């Protein structure tokens, strides 16, 4: 029960997937402790800290109670079974109470029932302990100490242990006691990764009398190479990427993949052909973001395909850009397309030019170009903001065919309303694969479908669980735990 969450992760890690990483992530053996208390090892200290935080915040209380029980029993402390039963009973009483006033009373009773457990945990703590903060970049240490009766304030001091150098204790912070709360402090002030530190905490009472509570052994802050909170998410990423890669390989082996038609994409050839017939240019707008936006990258990939068709049809293509880097990358892309189409002589670098970084300066210039050159076809492929409608309405006036593709949800309404074809979100990314016509690229689209199936599966299972929890009052059963586990552990991106 106690390490249930870790057990599942351990099983997965046991598959060999991440074994070396998990071994490297073992906490250091020594944390040091002073005074009484049964918990001594850094690992247990860290767990006690996690459990205490959970009990105090009241989040996922069922799980934390189970962990607290296991932790206490592991250290030879056993509370009467009736005590545990009482907490669970109060918890149920609170969760199933609908009247707000009575619910408040139930909450108070629950808090009171949790107190003896917290006290038992406090009693098991060392007077002062310190350990390396989990899942951090090696700049934090956590100091945890047992509450001291009558303390008005705690002084936390730190000693930087440097061999061969005289160093003194320095006070890093003072902390005021919070009733019913754990006494912990995350020290992230000027911690050097390689240095060893000792901490000591003193309590100051109402008379200003200082009592030294204890002193820790040496601790070092280490950076973790893998954040285990994100394990569930990593598996998610691996499954998704795996699906894409598997389908790409299947396609390379010659497996036939069927992909539905995407309206806007079938129009590309036609639109380029129209430009040739009318003897007017094609205008390609790659959005207003720089190369660090993936939409711009996707837009340029589409540009590559469009330019190739244009080169084959001998149509002129013009690409004004709003960023210097995009201009550079677009020139590479178009030059390659012309080369691949066997028309390197027709490539004109001057048609791909930088206008200005300013969003609206760019729009003013592009709309001016539209009105003066009356392009037969306009492509808007990339990241767009407010300018979307200005571009689309101006080009509409000049009678151009307009094909838009963007993954800016806010601009989709305008493109949908004003353009002939719009590639909505995912379709825009699919365009780059679809237009290439290469089978392995189509494979990646299948991989995306697997991702969507996965979403549906997760949402479906989650919804069923959540509905059961809500209707059948199963929150305090394994169903509630499963839902908790799914939402809190598996779907945890670790705030990153």
């Amino acid at each position, binding site marked *: 029960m106690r390490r249930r969450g870790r057990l599942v992760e351990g099983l997965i890690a046991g598959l060999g997937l991440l074994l070396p990483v998990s071994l490297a992530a073992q906490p250091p053996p020594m944390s040091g402790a002073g005074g009484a208390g049964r918990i001594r090892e850094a690992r247990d200290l860290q767990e006690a800290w996690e459990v205490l935080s959970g009990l105090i915040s009241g989040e996922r209380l069922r799980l934390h109670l189970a962990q607290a029980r296991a932790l206490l029993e592991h250290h030879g402390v056993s509370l009467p079974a009736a005590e545990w039963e009482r907490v669970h009973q109060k918890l149920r009483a609170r969760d199933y109470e609908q009247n707000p006033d009575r619910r408040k009373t139930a909450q108070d009773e629950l808090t009171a029932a949790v107190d003896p457990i917290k006290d038992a945990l406090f009693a098991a703590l060392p007077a002062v302990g310190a350990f390396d903060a989990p899942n951090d970049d090696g700049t934090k240490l956590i100091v945890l100490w047992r509450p001291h009766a009558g303390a008005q304030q705690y002084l936390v001091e730190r000693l930087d242990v440097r061999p061969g150098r005289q160093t003194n204790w320095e006070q890093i912070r003072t902390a005021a006691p919070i009733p019913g709360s754990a006494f912990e402090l995350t020290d992230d002030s000027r911690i050097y990764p390689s240095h060893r530190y000792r901490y000591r905490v003193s309590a100051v009472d109402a008379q200003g009398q200082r009592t030294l509570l204890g002193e820790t052994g040496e601790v070092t802050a280490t950076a973790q190479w893998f954040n285990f909170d994100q394990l569930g998410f990593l598996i998610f990423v691996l499954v998704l990427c795996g699906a894409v890669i598997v389908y790409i390989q299947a396609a390379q082996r010659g497996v036939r993949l069927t992909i539905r038609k995407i309206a806007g994409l079938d129009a590309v050839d036609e639109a380029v052909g129209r430009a040739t017939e009318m003897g007017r240019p094609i205008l390609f707008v790659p959005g207003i973001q720089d190369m660090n936006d993936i939409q711009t990258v996707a837009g340029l990939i589409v540009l590559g395909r469009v330019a190739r068709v244009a080169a084959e049809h001998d149509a002129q293509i013009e690409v004004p850009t709003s960023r210097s880097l995009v201009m550079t990358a677009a020139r590479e892309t178009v030059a390659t397309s012309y080369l691949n189409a066997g028309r390197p002589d027709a490539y004109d670098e001057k048609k791909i030019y930088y206008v200005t970084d300013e969003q609206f300066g760019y729009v003013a210039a592009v709309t001016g170009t539209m009105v003066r050159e009356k392009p037969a076809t306009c492509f808007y492929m990339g990241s767009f*903001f407010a300018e979307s409608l200005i571009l689309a309405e101006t080009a509409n006036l000049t009678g151009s065919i307009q094909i838009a593709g963007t993954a800016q949800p*806010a601009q989709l309404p305008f493109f949908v309303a004003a353009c002939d074809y719009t590639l909505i979100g995912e379709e825009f990314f699919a365009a780059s694969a679809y237009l290439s016509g290469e089978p392995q690229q189509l494979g990646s689209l299948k991989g995306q479908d697997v991702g969507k199936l996965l979403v549906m599966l997760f949402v479906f299972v989650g919804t069923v669980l959540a509905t059961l929890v809500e209707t059948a009052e199963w929150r305090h059963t394994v169903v509630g735990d499963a839902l908790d586990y799914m939402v809190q552990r598996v779907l945890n991106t670790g*705030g990153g």
Partner: protein
Amino acid sequence: MNPALKFLVHLDRRWVFLLMALAVMIPIIWRMEFPEIPTPLVRTVFDRIESLPEGSRILLAFDYDPGSEPELQPMASAWTWHCAKKKHKLYFLALWPVGPQMIQATVDSVLKRDYPQMRYGEDYVNLGYKSGNEGVIKVVVSNLKELYTTDHFGTAINDIPLTRDLVNIRGMDLILNVSAGYPGTKEWIQYASTPYNIPIAGGCTGVQAPLLYPYIPNQMFGLLGAIKGAAEYEKALSDQYPEYARDAAGKRRPEFTKGIERMGPQLIAHCVVLGLIVLGNVILALHRRALRAA
């Protein structure tokens, strides 16, 4: 087809432009105003700022630019005024390069005018702009001084009383974000508010608002949507503090009621847009009938 319908079917859109220009210009010249009732989303924000104890730390992140100033400045001013009224400590910060100018403009027009007793560095501070978009947020939630070694004016951050002991923005009681796009409210929610439980309220342009709805109320407690939100906030503010909207002589203070004032032309222009949609469909129906008859 009768000539009127023919004219409408092939309507030159410059007539639409002219209509729109008149719809906005006339209410401005005649100063038409309409009543506002604060909606719950706005009310929550107002009540939250109102109920915080004096001296609470509030982070005002101004992530907009001159382009969206008409839409967002009224709410930025109203928030700043309200926070100053409640004697909160104000930390201004910007993720957009031109944000510091927006901050300075707000400070000049609100704090220096109505709260000349507020001292820079003790009651408010302008941390200025740092490049890096959401990267900046990720840093300041853990260690502010890693990125902000000086304020906007180049004063070392350790020399400023307000920021001397500030480790990171997790110590804030509230984040108020005025946002015109990326990076903005969404990033503040994702990287600061949700992971570290800092209450956040957003004020955004009309385009953004629909995208922020999914975050209410779990990840964000309130939202001021564009000028309408600002107008409602101004209304709530002047109901509570009459001196906000009128000076001692009872004269209107237009620079503080811009939201309400701008709702006039908005309303008329909205009706014009609504009318245009209806007209478009009437034309469509008549045109179809005319074609069928022909």
